[in-house]
């Protein structure tokens, strides 16, 4: 609270406690308008963002919505203990990690690859059209995306027709009905939706590379692929490292929309991740305590990952997120 204005006004008062308080009140009065602009929203943020954290206590109770807080029965770590002995939750944990890791690695490689290839396009107009088309799916909702994907993958969808036409499979496959395929379908859907959008940041990095390097390499007789390998990729390296580290922080955040919307009774063993588990237990089965415990577990793990990734990034000299 030691702002310039405060320091200036406090000179007029003796450096006593009351003087400071007085000058502080005077500053507040003079900034009435700014306070009016922020105070309602500070209250809002406390109610809607901070207050729910209080609800974490539920995970340590056998929470019954009808009872008041003092009437709740405290059970310690019972729900956490249950989670880690429950086969379903262990499967959920496996799904969360597998889905995130696959999405992270494939998402990264495809976005970098596509950015390099887009950068190599020589026709400006064609380049712009390709960019516009590839960004588009990012702006569609996951509901729309899931409708498109499930239509493609249905029994009489084009994927089955194509694969049978190419003699890769003999019989039609109900793709979303086979659990083992789910991680792959999820990764492919995620790439389809976001790969174009994710190239933006890499293209921005490429545009910072000095053109003279390319000219010099050309004169030295470097081929197209050599120029990509020795100039473009190294030029993107700082951005790649920062994004990789930051994304490691979000490793447990695989989202839930695609999993929830594409998931069904047949693939649940592979589709259900922590977020979907929370929805299924909490919202559909009203087991608030268990669902909250799972949610807390996720938040804590992801916070640890985020802090670790951030301090790692600072150590690497790349600057942190905060």
């Amino acid at each position: 609270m030691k702002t310039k204005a405060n320091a200036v006004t406090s000179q007029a008062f003796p450096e006593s406690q009351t003087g400071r308080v007085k000058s502080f009140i005077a500053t507040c009065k003079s900034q009435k308008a700014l306070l009016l602009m922020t105070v309602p929203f500070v209250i809002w943020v406390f109610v809607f963002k901070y207050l729910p954290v209080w609800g974490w206590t539920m995970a340590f109770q056998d929470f019954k919505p009808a009872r008041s807080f003092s009437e709740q029965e405290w059970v310690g770590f019972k729900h956490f203990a249950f989670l880690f002995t429950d086969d379903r939750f262990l499967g959920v944990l496996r799904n969360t990690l597998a889905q995130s890791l696959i999405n992270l690695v494939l998402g990264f490689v495809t976005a970098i690859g596509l950015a390099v290839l887009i950068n190599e396009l020589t026709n400006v107009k064609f380049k712009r059209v390709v960019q516009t088309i590839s960004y588009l799916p990012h702006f569609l909702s996951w509901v729309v995306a899931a409708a498109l994907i499930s239509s493609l993958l249905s029994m009489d969808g084009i994927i089955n027709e194509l694969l049978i036409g190419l003699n890769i499979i003999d019989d039609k496959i109900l793709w979303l009905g086979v659990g083992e395929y789910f991680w792959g379908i999820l990764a492919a859907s995620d790439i389809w939706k976001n790969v174009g959008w994710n190239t933006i940041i890499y293209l921005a990095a490429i545009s910072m590379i000095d053109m003279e390097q390319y000219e010099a390499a050309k004169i030295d007789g470097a081929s197209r692929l050599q120029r990509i390998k020795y100039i473009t990729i190294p030029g993107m390296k700082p951005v790649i490292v920062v994004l990789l580290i930051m994304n490691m922080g979000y490793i447990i955040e695989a989202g839930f929309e695609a999993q929830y919307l594409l998931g069904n009774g047949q693939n649940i063993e592979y589709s259900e991740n922590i977020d979907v588990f929370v929805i299924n237990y909490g919202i559909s089965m009203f087991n608030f305590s268990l669902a909250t415990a799972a949610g807390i577990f996720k938040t804590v793990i992801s916070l640890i990952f985020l802090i670790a990734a951030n301090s790692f990034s600072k150590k690497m000299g790349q600057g942190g997120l905060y």
Partner: protein
Amino acid sequence: MILAKKRKKNLMRTKEDVLFDTFNVTFMILLSIVMLYPFLNQIALSLNAATDSVKGGIYLWPREFTWRNYEYVFSQASIMQGIFVSVARTVIGTLISILCTAMVAYAIAQEKFVFKRSVTIIFIMTMYFNGGLIPTYLLMRDLQLIGTFWVYIIPGIISAFNLIIMRSFIEGIPKSIFEQARIDGAGDFRVFFQIVLPLSLPVLATVSLFVAVGQWNQWFDVFLYNSSNESLTTLQYELMKVLQNTATSNGDWNSAQASGEHAANTVTPKSIQATMTIVASLPIICIYPFLQKYFVKGMTLGAVK
């Protein structure tokens, strides 16, 4: 002279270059097809007679052209209701969110503001944790927001991310403009409404787009808070319901009977889903190509931070 230039250019293009470019362009065309095909296919399906679509073989062009599917979809009360709520939440939610975010951003951009640092930190902290689904749900219940329209607007008024983007922009406005206005006797509210808002139009446009797209695409809060309240469901939620119904019918959705007795012979779940998919994404498809640069700007603005 042009010929000489051309020859020089040709000389510089090696065989490898030609090969690379051919591969690259072919790849990009294939990629564009993969990106667009699912969508074009749904357009074709939505414009094709439902009973004919059952035979399969509809790819990019309708075989038996009809508006019947659209007529059916737009005659459904629940869908028209959904469109209305979707539009309402997009317009109202975006306006309120932008105005409030800009106002707080203005306050925390002022050097002299006593709580500049503390308010900024209070908001930034929310980027790193959240109370989780169930506690938030119970809070909405306790605040009696469940079953109301405002549950779509109030919990998301300010996002810390948008706040930081706007603050950075406002901090970039030359101080002398504010000083001059203050000397002329303008208070903070007047400076904000008459100077800062008009000067911030570029960043307001970008952030509005993201907020609006987010509102239009949202289905989860409807599912959580208003799934039993039919008068407040959105278009995306109605589409989700159709999707879940067709998905549970074992993928063999052609044999499923359409809802609605009279329509049973002319529409199928498949054609309804295709039509609703198009209706739900059309607003975005229509505005997106024209506003793409603002979207991209938002992405890079966020990355700079």
